[in-house]
């Protein structure tokens, strides 16, 4: 029996937490737009991809995020806050996309929206069906509940960071995560780490 060769692994980005000495830079001027893009485009792409769940929308949203950043970069004084600032813009733009997606889903319930799942093809490919099921369930959630849940559970962001990225209080973020958790618990089971 011929061995099935695994598909070539894509060059992908993995999220680097903000406190891990990642390429966020220190205090001071944020630098040129090209530098900011080179440092943070991967982070923005990872965040947007995980929130949206599809690869094919990522370049468009990254483009929108950095166009906004290009317009407002002059107002940023501390390069240390660039990453969080870009994260907030990315979350807002992704939320906008999600709201439009829900409108389309409402108008065309039978439409298959997911075309290019962000799940890996190689090592954990047995998890692809579960990822597809997870994102299909997330599509039924409002963006204001989906985004905090994704940030907390799929990106491992602490609660204060989730609240900051979503532009809400920590209590609100917790409440929204709990609402989403009730919907997703039958798929994922109980959260052993947080309980």
């Amino acid at each position, binding site marked *: 029996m011929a061995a099935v060769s695994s598909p070539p692994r894509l060059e992908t980005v*993995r999220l680097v937490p903000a406190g891990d000495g990642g390429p966020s830079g220190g205090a001071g001027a944020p630098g040129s737009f090209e530098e900011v893009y080179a440092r943070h485009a991967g982070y923005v792409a990872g965040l947007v991809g995980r929130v949206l769940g599809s690869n094919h929308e990522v370049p468009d949203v990254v*483009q929108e995020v*950095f166009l906004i950043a290009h317009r407002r970069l002059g107002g940023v004084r501390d390069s240390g806050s660039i990453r969080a600032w870009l994260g907030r813009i990315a979350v807002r733009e992704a939320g906008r996309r999600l709201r439009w997606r829900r409108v389309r889903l409402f108008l065309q319930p039978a439409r298959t929206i997911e075309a*290019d799942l*962000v799940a890996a093809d190689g090592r*954990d490919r047995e998890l692809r069906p579960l990822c597809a099921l*997870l994102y299909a369930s997330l599509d039924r959630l409002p963006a204001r509940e989906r985004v905090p849940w994704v940030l907390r559970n*799929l990106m491992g962001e602490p609660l204060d960071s989730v609240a900051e990225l979503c532009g809400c209080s920590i209590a609100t973020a917790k409440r929204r995560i709990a609402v989403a958790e009730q919907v997703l618990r039958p798929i994922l089971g109980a959260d052993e780490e947080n309980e």
Partner: protein
Amino acid sequence: MSPLSRRRRIADALEVRWTPALAARTQRRIGEAVARRRRRRRALVAGLALLSLGGVSFAFVRGPELFGRRSPNVTGAPSTPSRALAAPAEPPPIPEEAPPATVPAPPTTAPTLPKRASHRRPAAAAQPPPSVASLFAAADAARLAGQPADAVAPLTAILDRFPGDRRAALAAFQLGRVLADDLHDAAAAARAFARAREIDPTGPFAGAAAARASEAQRNAHPQSAP
């Protein structure tokens, strides 16, 4: 059983496709969008600048003319409103050769009066030459003020200085009306009406000018009437 929870394994399994080629392509698209936005902004600024330039030049060229037509000077003198408004706000003229306080002042202020007059005379001489509209305004003002004789000079000035203007026929017709109706100079009125018809034989005043010309001629020479 896996040591990791199911959601943790899913989180680890998620990979967003973001290759260097994709990053470069996105950066290129961002650059194109930024350049497009800059071009749009430049075009907008240029359009606004052209619009404001056109407005300012229009205000300079046609503003006094339009404003003069709306509020003609009662005395008939073709003066701009800004000048008329600015005149009262002028500070009192300071004598150019005012003596210091230690020097005894002249006994009367009489010597300052000629200086004031001589100060204003060059300003009046520096006024721009009257336009057709300002001459019309002066004529209208004179007629409305009950001095039709003063309207003859501006209307004649229009005919003499601007014979090619499209309003020359109107000026001639108006002159004929003033001469015939107000000043009762039938012969001159007949000449003015004939001039109006001659300037614009197909214009809106041609028929009326011909009729008024023949009527004025009849009044001027009553013995030649049938």
